[in-house]
């Protein structure tokens, strides 16, 4: 990981939306087939949820990987060895 996630160009769209990616699954709570995966800010921080859109039951709550780009920015030194001073 380098410095590529430190500085961004501003978006060109006037209004921004979070994309919910449909997932082929059935909610174990309510039986709905309307399940989606998307990034959220939950109570501890950024997470990727797979969630029933009918009853909000979580099928999974995952810590984002580097490929999830959530949040978009990332420390350039995250994977470096740590010193006494950090």
């Amino acid at each position, binding site marked *: 990981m380098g410095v590529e996630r430190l500085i961004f160009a501003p978006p060109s769209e006037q209004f921004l939306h979070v994309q919910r990616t449909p997932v082929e699954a059935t909610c174990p709570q309510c039986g709905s087939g309307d399940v989606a995966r998307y*990034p*959220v*800010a939950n109570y501890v921080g950024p997470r990727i949820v797979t969630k029933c859109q009918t009853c909000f039951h979580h099928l999974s709550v995952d810590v984002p990987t580097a490929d999830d780009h959530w949040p978009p920015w990332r*420390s350039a030194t995250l994977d470096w060895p740590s010193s006494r001073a950090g």
Partner: protein
Amino acid sequence: MTIDIDIDDNQHLSNLDAKDIARRYGAELVELETLRYGLLEVARDMHESLVRSSFSPIVRDIQDCTAAIHMRTDAGWETVASREGAMQHAFTAQHMCNFLMEEWDEASLQPGDTIFVNDPWRGAIHQSDVNLFRPIIIDGRVEFVLHSTSHVLDLGGAVPGGFANGVQTHFEEQLKFPPTLLYAGDVPVRPAFNYILENTRVPSSLLGDLRALYGCLAVGDARLRELVDRFGLALVRAGGQYGTDRIEQSMRAAIAALPDGDYPVEDFIDEDGVTDEELRIAATVRVRGDSIEVDFSGTSRQPLGNVGTAWIEGTRCVQGIKMVLDPHSPVNSGTLRPIEALLPAGSAVCTLPPSSVSNHLDIGSRNINMMTTAMSMALPEHGVAPDSGNFAAMMIGGFDDRHGHEGPWAGAILPGGAWGGTYKSDGLTSVTPAIGACRSSVWEHIERESPIVPLMHEFLPDSAGAGFHRGGFGGIFTLLPLATTYATITGDRSKRGAPGVNGGGSGFPFYAWLVPGDDPSVVLDPFDLRGCEPLFGVFDGQGRPVADDGVFGRGARYQTAKVAGLELKPGYALRVLFGGGGGWGDPLERPVDRVLEDVQAGLYSPEFVERAYGVVLSSSDEVDVDATTRLRAELADARKDGKWTVPAACPTNWIV
């Protein structure tokens, strides 16, 4: 002693008796309650210590500061107790701790280490709000992280005092610190201190505040260890878990009482201080069972100016929801658990670096107002109108050249604002908006420490949005500099005041003037505009403020209420008029005796109550009942025909 907590039990705490709770948490209920409050007392001690020992007025007087205790859990780091001076900090603290602990190598931490962070992309509100974290290592493992937060007067950058209005990147704002070791084993890290102190305009104040932030963590360290020594780590952890579960249960029970549904809300920021582009903040609040999702999709792209925020709106929104649904319980991790937020990357609520984010006040206030509005849609009988939406916040400073006072100085001025009317009462007058709910400034301290004289700080008549329950009243604040002073003014709702709800009217917008300071009859009369230079506001062709149909910026120096580098020379005063809250309900139905009370108290003028409430006075202490009945009927009919709307609050007796 090891205690196994059966947290997979899906039963709500309210369904459990004391024996069940003891079984679930491995401790007696009385012990759990003792420790729940014990942790709150540690946080309170930390906060009191911080307020008592800090140097700058923004901590000592305004109490823009907070202390929190985070505990290791299976989910990450959860806030088990907090004590806030500024309400928003209690909602944003937990994410900061998690960002830090995911990034910092725990194995390198030692007792007494203290880490400094003010990076908005790591959960800080803006760079001016600095955070110190102190890990508490017990039996070789970090079990708790103590956290202190405060606004500081200056951390360098292009614009003194933060709120870098007019800039477009964070490079031009206060210095931004990723996690940085400030104390290594209780020993100050000299390079870190040197870097900070040599890049601020007020090193004495900042050093005092940093030591206060560190000192309160040392107090918390001692108090928390006393608790652990007395009760044992496992029991203290059980108390923390029980305390957060109780608050989660309280929030979920309140959410479950809402009708399932989608509640779309929006509000606007006048402009961003760089362009005149209006910003739309949109959210759909989705309620399902005992959980909520706040989706900010539809929000404007990140602004060029500094009015967006990087990350915090995802938890700051919870504050507005809690205000309506569960206003009495203390804030901890349990408050946040039932709610998730969707933040569109690149939007005004999730700006991408290197955007500027120093003015978080306006978007934060909109966020809170939007959430209370959404709750009002879900619970119409519990409506709350928006607050004044700004604090009339001013950062001031310069070099004091008066004999005996020579030196750099800085201060923060927070005259306040007002809250909107609610379903059960008029809005609060002379309070800071809910986002902070902290204190106003202490003028005696300002006068003693700064070369300025606060001349006026009082209610502004005709500023509260009309309603069955009117908004709180806005105010007048006038300061006279005794030495050349540079001011940053940060405000919004300057194009239009706080909107009303359920038929209520808008509050008065936000205005400012430079006023000749040598004529007491002018400087002490806020309605006398002779010789005054308008700085911003909505005016008619004669320079009179008109809230409903004037032109924003007409004849004014600025086309924005977000001003930096305003030079104030001795002999000229700065006057701001800040608006009141929006009204709740139909003003034509407000009892006439309550309207009369406001007139007799000097809060409303007879002219305004006739226009907005349809109440006609025959004398200063008597209502003309027949004329009032006729006028109210006429106005109600005109409203049905689309020929009358409740006028925005606005004084009428201007002298130009």
